[in-house]
């Protein structure tokens, strides 16, 4: 990001006294509706979540309060983590689908770039997927 510097406490967890971890408010610094709304949607899709919402505390401060309440005794961190993973999965799939839709010469230049990047599991799968599609 453009403002790289010391980031203090990018994420805080606030829990009311007496509760047992299944209703937690996460304070996310340097975030806004971009992550807030999309993450809220992914967490709400989880059947274990009883309540999920977010708000921007004040428009002059760039932080959001993100609250999750779960059914039963599931710790609230679990749906939070699952929501983030699901969001990454969605983005990866959209990226792959979009790539496949591009014109052949764009695809070629993309493949060249992909070869230069270090492979991790996901991009490897995407790369081989696209390779299969070009061969078909």
């Amino acid at each position: 990001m453009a403002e790289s510097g010391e980031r203090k406490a990018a994420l805080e967890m606030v829990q009311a006294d007496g509760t047992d971890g299944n209703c937690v408010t996460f304070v996310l610094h340097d975030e806004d509706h971009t992550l807030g709304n999309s993450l809220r949607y992914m967490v709400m899709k989880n059947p274990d979540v009883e309540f999920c919402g977010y708000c921007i505390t004040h428009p002059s401060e760039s932080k959001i309060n993100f609250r999750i309440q779960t059914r039963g005794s599931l710790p609230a961190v679990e749906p939070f983590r699952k929501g983030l993973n699901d969001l990454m999965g969605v983005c990866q799939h959209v990226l792959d689908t979009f790539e496949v839709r591009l014109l052949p010469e764009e695809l070629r230049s993309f493949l060249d770039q992909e070869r230069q990047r270090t492979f991790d599991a996901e991009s490897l799968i995407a790369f081989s997927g696209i390779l299969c599609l070009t061969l078909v």
Partner: protein
Amino acid sequence: MAAKRSMDELRERVVLGEFGVRNVHTTDFPGNYPGYDDAWDQRRFEEAFRVDVVREEDGVLEFDMVGIDAAIANAFRRILLAEVPTMAVEKVFVYNNTSIVQDEILAHRLGLIPIRADPRLFEYRNQGDEEGTEIDTLQFQLKIKCSRNPQAAKESSDPNELYFNHKVYSKHMTWVPLGNQTDLFPDADFRPVHDDILIALLRPGQEIDVLMHCVKGIGKDHAKFSPVATASYRLLPDITLLQPVEDEAAETLQKCFSPGVIEIQNIKGKKVARVANARLDTFSREVFRHEGLKNLVRLARVRNHYISAKVWLARSTASGKMRGKCWSHLQAEAAQWQC
């Protein structure tokens, strides 16, 4: 059956009524509808999701995303506007400016000029670094002097005849390689995207001599870094005729919508209206002003079908920016919150 149909409508359509819009919010979360399994399922999403590129020209990309929710589509739009990096002029070293455009105004205008340079080739500048190195800075020079044309006719009052270089365009900006940039980018062509952006006007004797440093930045920091002129989307329109519309009513109906939406067919001598291409409609809702017609049509939008139009400022890697940065940015943001 009717109950299921209305539930489907609630889930899948945003309905435009006469006095307001109904079913705006996404409601397909687990537990809201008995009999529907709405929990997140990556496989179901992948089967339903598709992207269709409608138009990809120099500077405009229009595509359809089907099967995705507003929250995510909007997140992509916000990222395109504010968080996809580009190169833009940040520091302007003014050696000589005798034009009537003040230094700071000139610097502001130079900053807004879109630069054709792939930001992935550069790093962000470190905070507090005033000088800039060759891996994070692109240098341009604008050196132009206006002079009188001795060949001009005596009575002429046309500035194009009387003066040389009286209009300063973005094409007068030249790239000055720093350090080993000539070796790093041997066939690179760094210049403003458009050659014909008018920067300033000069008269004989006036001169502009400035050196500019471009850095990598994002739209959140300053709008000059935004790669898109605009990024927008709309939902796919869905127009349904609840009853057959004939003759004069059909003609009126056709005029209520954008051209091409309703077509009139001749069936057994009668003119019958038919929805030809709902996608073209801009939903002026003119049909609600006609008492006889307003109950015959249902105007709605398909909730998860997004027609996105992105207008780019930089021609280089237009769709590349889209694919490389946009989707993976949201992914990266999500990833950084992983404990």
